[in-house]
């Protein structure tokens, strides 16, 4: 687990991350909504950090790598992609990914439209409600956030990794993305991420997060 909101799968030397939403800021600006442009560089800085720290063979994007139609922020991504020619990159498509046809060749990224099975894991963008046998699904999409509450009615809301019985959900990696408080079942594990640190939370009973 990496505090940059990604997972490094050691055996496969693969980085797993989800929901970058590249181009979101430009998409807004193109529509006349003035979100500061320089926010977009934050994503690439963190990607660089992770690759430098782990030196992976592969990066797997579990959907919503891009936010919407093509725009110039994609060129930034393309430039970033070219920095790591030896790293294999794959994407399982998400609901925001509207990829052009020449995407694979231009960006050297392999596309899996709905899911990708590697070893015991199924990678899919949307979390599942039903499972095939004993597969373990790793997904994204919901931008999970946990609301922690304690004595004297204090609380903190922060992005998190979620690990349930049969599936895990990745936090959203992207900079300009929001979050949704998730429900937690018995015996689930949640790892909260805040200020580049990890905080494991383990529960025996179910907790319904109220969106605070």
């Amino acid at each position, binding site marked *: 687990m990496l505090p940059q909101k990604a997972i490094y799968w050691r055996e496969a030397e693969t980085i797993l991350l989800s929901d970058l939403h590249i181009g979101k800021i430009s998409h807004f600006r*193109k*529509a006349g909504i003035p*979100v500061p442009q320089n926010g977009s560089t934050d994503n690439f800085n963190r990607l660089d950090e992770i690759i430098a720290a782990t030196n992976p063979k592969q990066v797997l994007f579990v959907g919503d790598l891009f*936010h*919407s139609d093509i725009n110039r*922020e994609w060129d930034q991504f393309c430039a970033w992609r070219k920095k790591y020619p030896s790293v294999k990159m794959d994407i399982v498509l998400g609901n925001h990914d509207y990829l052009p046809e020449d995407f694979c060749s231009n960006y050297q990224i392999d596309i899996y439209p709905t899911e990708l099975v590697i070893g015991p894991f199924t990678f899919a963008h949307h979390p599942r409600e039903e499972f095939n046998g004993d597969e373990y699904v790793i997904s994204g999409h919901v931008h999970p956030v946990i609301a922690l509450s*304690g004595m004297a*009615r204090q609380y903190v809301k922060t992005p998190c990794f979620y690990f349930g019985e049969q599936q895990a959900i990745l936090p959203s990696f992207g900079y300009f993305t929001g979050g949704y408080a998730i429900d937690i079942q018995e015996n689930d594990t949640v790892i909260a991420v805040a200020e580049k640190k990890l905080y494991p939370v383990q529960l025996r009973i179910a907790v319904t997060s109220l969106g605070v």
Partner: protein
Amino acid sequence: MTLTKGEKVISDWIAANGWELADFQRDTMAAYLAGKSGLLNAPTGSGKTYALFLPILAKFINDNPDYQNQKKSKLRILWITPLRALTKDIQRNLINACTGMNIPWKIGIRTGDMSAKEKNAQIKEAPEVLLITPESLHLFFAQKDHEEMFKNLEAIVVDEWHELLSTKRGVATELGLAHMRTLNPDLLVWGISATIGNLEQALQTLIGTKFNPDKAVIIRSTIIKKVEVESILPDHIEKLPWAGYLGINLLDKVMPIIMKSKTTLLFTNTRSQTEIWFRFVSENYPELAGQVALHHGSLDREIRAWVEENLHLGKLKLVICTSSLDLGVDFRPVETVIQVGSAKSISRFLQRAGRSGHRPGAVSKIYFVPTHAIELIEGVCLRDGVKQNKIEERVPIIQAFDVLVQYMVTLAVGGGFKEDELFREIRLTYSYQLINDDEWKWLLGFITTGGTTLDAYDEFNRVEREGDLFVVKNKRVAMRHRLSMGTIVSDASLKVQYVSGKYIGNVEESFIARMNPGDVFSFAGMNLEFIRVREMTAHVRKASPKKKGIIPRWAGGRIPLSSQLSDFIRERLSGSGYDVREPELATLQPLFDLQRERSEIPNKNQLLIEQCRTKEGYHIFIYPFEGRLVHEGMAALIAYRVSKIRPITFSMAMNDYGFELLTDVEIALEDMLQEHALFSTEDLLLDIQRSVNATEMAKRKFREVAAISGMIFQGYPGQGIKARHLQASSSLLFDVISEHEPKNLLIRQAYQEALDQQLEERRLRMALERIRTQDVIIRYPTTPSPFAFPIMVDRLREQLSSEKLEDRLTKLVRQFEQVNGATDKK
């Protein structure tokens, strides 16, 4: 004195109807015919509409001796009203006068939901008078050639100006007036306002800053309405809960009053309260079925119009409503007004009282129903306030950059604006008289380049520069702007509609999110079964009325107690041990005794502080009696100052009487107060800004700012999934902009709004100064006192912390695990 021809025609018509002009109507006539602008201060139902319309007609007759013959019509008068619901009634009155004097004028209404065809027809054959809301006026500005429409304008009347004055809609009105004055410098501008504490300022905002003061007058009507205030008292004070907001306990005392009177308006402070009252009344008084209705802002406009119509016709016995009926048509059948819960201000209370007793000379009677025990004291205080005629001010909003951004883009959509001309124009408004060159340059940059420096990847697209003209050329940008104009920002809400398609109203998304198909909820006084959510609509069907449905809650700003009313409360508490001549105080005696037994009742030279421990933690209660907003600010301030002394996390709660700081460790406040100036006004601004709350509050304010300035796009029907790719929460935007562009004026505005409106900084400062002169008394009750209880049970809390996030998280994770079960690690 000889009358002009116009005056003669008018006075003949008045006489023929058997009426007589009141003094203020005569004065307005004289001032208007002398070419003056002004502000007319007259209560609803006193003939204020005619006070202005008759002079307008008189002038027309004087200028056009052949006035009865139809010529090509042109728009002469704009009549701005805050509510569309008001326009019908005014239209009726104006038409009545025109027909009575054979003046061939058309009186039109401009609304947002007219078809394009109707709108075009209205432009081609303009009515002489156009009734319009500020929003619809701005929609005109978004059309090319709108100048043509307004070039013959002679006067603008702004009705119920006090209602608009202290809102962003008022700012939008100011901008509209300034724009019209540019088109026609001789324009007369008249406002009509109820009594407020700052009438001069209200006039100033209407006529702008560079207006010749000799050309403007304030005319006050001398009609004073008699108002009687009576509290509904419980037999024993124990009958009233210590905390609560419903007031339903007193239903059996309230109903006889309703039964006795022809029609009653019952005002509550929240929408869910109206639903609850409606349910209780229907359940306990089935004989009233069909004669009780409810009215609030989340109901479909058609339902509301039905209620208003039947109220007008006298077909309803009782209407349970919120501020949605503060304004509106004269409901003559209304005999009785009941206020449930704190009215928060004397002027609002008077305005509501004024909804009854419309016959000239009639006394307006208003009943006050307390919702919890201590609130009963407000009954006396309201009476004090009414007696001494202490009316609150309505302070105009200044430097609202979000409204200006919207206006600039509106003009850019509507044919474009020139930099210098517009700058000159807006600086003549009261609201933007202080805007400086840097701010103006930033705003221009914001709408053209998006505010940040251009880089290679930028594709920002909004307003473009074409020569010296700023214009919007992109059709989609223009369309999106037209669709999102306005300054009323609604909460994120879902439509509620029957499966068959009929629309009922709106509820908040978070409420529906908790419902499962088959669940029943109460809405619009009906029981509805939730079926599904599709797009942004909740589909429902009627459920059996026997089922107890859950009642939705709508988030709404909570209005604080006005400082005038707070003064009266402190004053009355001071004497609470002695004055039992007032029935409210006599009833409250046992509760005051208990408060004294457990703690103390402060006199006006004392500040009461209570500290006590419960299983929730360590509580500190402080009671400045200054209204909840000042308490919110003061709570953050004190919490921050304590947290500077030692790392600590507070959770805070407040009501109109005091506030609470709750921690998980004990604090020796008494010692701290001796060593540290916790209540000092020194570094006040700095300390407030440093307290976490300022950011949180600014963030909340930013929601509205971002929506008005066009940074949040709510989407519209038929846009499909891609429209959602343009949605971001305002708090996310706030974070991103704060990080990358801290000097952004709209972020600054959000902070300023938080300071002015949310923290009432000026009032906070005055309160702190008062506290400095007071003796602090600290008590340590073993059980929470009656004063403390209503604050303690408030679940809407703020937090302030000086502990490191890391420490807090580690602590919270530990506590969370303890509470929720896990002890051993897997």
